[in-house]
């Protein structure tokens, strides 16, 4: 049994990754996630077969991770928004070559250089693949220190299970905030599932090729459909949400990550004055938990999406609702962090405007 410890988010991810069998990390400094590679550098020194590399670029880092993954290691890289843009080449190759890897994006204000404040501007990039070609990455959106620990461990399992890149999508606030956490148990490396596809030298078996060049369009099409079938399975098997006070709700707020914690604080406030408002929080952004949204729409006709951007996840909410319910949006892009009071005011104003206090 591991004791509860007080740790900042970036350290939680790093420690949880190591405990989950991550033996290769490559990264490049960028704020606000530098404490993650720094923690890795120190912690991995103490592990015989672990490799930490401060790479010359984000591109090199993700391609080193790709090599380590080919060689059979649980491998990870981390960065923040502009650096994640550079990693997209590697993420596309990881998806195409069906290689497991975990990529942490500690999002900051953008576009361009933006700033180093917490943001959710990379939702589209993360959930739509991000790099070139017809692929998806699994995108996990933890919101608490404990979820960072649990979802880091889960990210490595999912990456292995589906042979796919998995993105942990957090922001600078979650990366910096210290919270009490019970880290995952140390994984016995023997428990990491056997991989029958890695490149470790063709001893006593035929030589293997890991590649994504498929010149014949018919075969490339089949490869795309193969990936698509995998994505269909993931969509069926992996939709995670937290529902908070939605049973009697007349209005459901949808938010993820830091925005969801702010929204929860706001909902507690408006509940005190009798407004029937709940929270539906996606923990998987891809696959988007459309089922839970659809289920909620059977009894809730008004949805408010709150994001720290100009409106990205709101498109997935609209797609899931198929016009069965109304969708409202409130966003603060650019690294502005709303207070629960601000969101409580937004909720209250909308609630009265929509006349939801009237019994129907």
């Amino acid at each position, binding site marked *: 049994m591991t004791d509860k410890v007080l740790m900042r988010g970036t350290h939680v991810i790093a420690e949880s990754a190591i405990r989950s069998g991550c033996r290769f990390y490559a990264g490049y400094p960028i704020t606000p996630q530098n404490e993650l590679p720094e923690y890795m550098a120190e912690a991995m020194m103490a592990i015989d077969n672990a490799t930490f590399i401060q790479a010359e670029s984000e591109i090199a880092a993700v391609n080193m991770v790709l090599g380590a993954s080919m*060689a059979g290691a649980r*491998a990870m890289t981390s960065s923040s928004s502009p650096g994640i843009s550079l990693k997209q080449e590697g993420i596309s190759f990881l998806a195409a070559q069906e290689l497991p890897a975990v990529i942490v994006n500690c999002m900051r204000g953008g576009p361009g250089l933006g700033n180093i404040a917490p943001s959710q501007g990379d939702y589209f990039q993360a959930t739509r693949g991000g790099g070139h070609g017809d692929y998806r990455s699994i995108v996990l959106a933890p919101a608490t220190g404990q979820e960072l620990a649990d979802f880091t461990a889960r990210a490595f399992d999912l990456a292995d299970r589906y042979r796919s890149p998995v993105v942990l999508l957090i922001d600078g606030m979650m990366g910096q905030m210290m919270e009490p956490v019970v880290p995952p148990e140390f994984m016995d490396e023997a428990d990491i599932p056997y991989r029958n596809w890695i490149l*470790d*030298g063709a001893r006593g078996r035929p030589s293997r090729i890991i590649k994504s060049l498929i010149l014949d369009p018919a075969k490339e099409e089949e490869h795309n459909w193969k990936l698509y079938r995998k994505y269909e399975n993931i969509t069926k098997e992996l939709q995670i949400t937290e529902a908070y006070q939605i049973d009697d709700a007349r209005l459901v707020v949808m938010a993820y990550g830091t925005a969801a914690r702010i929204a929860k604080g706001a909902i507690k406030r408006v509940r005190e004055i009798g407004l029937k408002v709940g929270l539906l929080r996606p923990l998987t952004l891809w696959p988007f938990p459309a089922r839970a949204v659809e289920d909620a729409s059977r009894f809730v006709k008004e949805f408010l999406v709150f994001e720290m951007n100009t409106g990205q996840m709101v498109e997935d909410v609209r797609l899931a609702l198929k016009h069965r319910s109304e969708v409202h949006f409130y966003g603060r892009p650019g690294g502005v962090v709303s207070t629960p009071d601000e969101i409580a005011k937004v909720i209250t104003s909308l609630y009265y405007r929509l006349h939801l206090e009237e019994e129907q």
Partner: protein
Amino acid sequence: MSKPVFHRPKYLKDAPFHYCPGCGHSIIHRLIAEVIEELGIGEITIGVPPAGCAVLAYDYFDVDMGEAAHGRGCAVATGIKRILPDRIVFSYQGDGDIAAIGTAETIHAANRGENITVIFVNNSCYGMTGGQMAPTTVLGQKTTTTPGGRTAPLHGTPIDLSQMIALARGSVYIERTSVHSVRHILKTKKALMKAFTAQMNGRGFSLVEILSPCPTNWKLTPVEACDHIEKEITKTFPLKVIKDEIDADRQGPP
């Protein structure tokens, strides 16, 4: 009973090469396969093919092969080698791959002293995409993007990546050879043997740059292309051992 004097190397698959007539890649593939066989490392070798003319190298080498994105061979090879330090890892890269888009990955892998072997095939143009100017295109050379010939003021001068790599303290062995004649083919094999052996002995980063004819894009016959290497290309890229510190007393590689 007659003894065969020429046979397919064990680690070359029985597949016809797709390369153009007179291209150097097939010779270089064969040399690498011979070296792998003679060193007895076929079952522990992992190759990293490039994007470029040799992108299909995995169809020919009968060892484990993992494709890298354009220019990222040394980064991918680094990842593989760090996880499997007792395996032999080589990347196979063209001049555009290694000396333009992958310059950073190559220099830094060399500087870290990654214990890998890089085969750098220099044909002074982008062959697969149709013969555009490469960083190694020599002055005066006409390509599809230097129709009037490469000039220093407009295009810069040809880059000598091997010399740059030699400056990196983690590199131990760098030689420039060619495959334009039998004598040079034999020298190239010796250089490859030395580079792979250096890796087997844990010495650090080794690189063999091989000048290779591209008759198709040079618009020459295969014989003229070999002559062109001898008379023109070697003026810019002289054949020599650029660095040999294999036996130097030095801090070991990672």
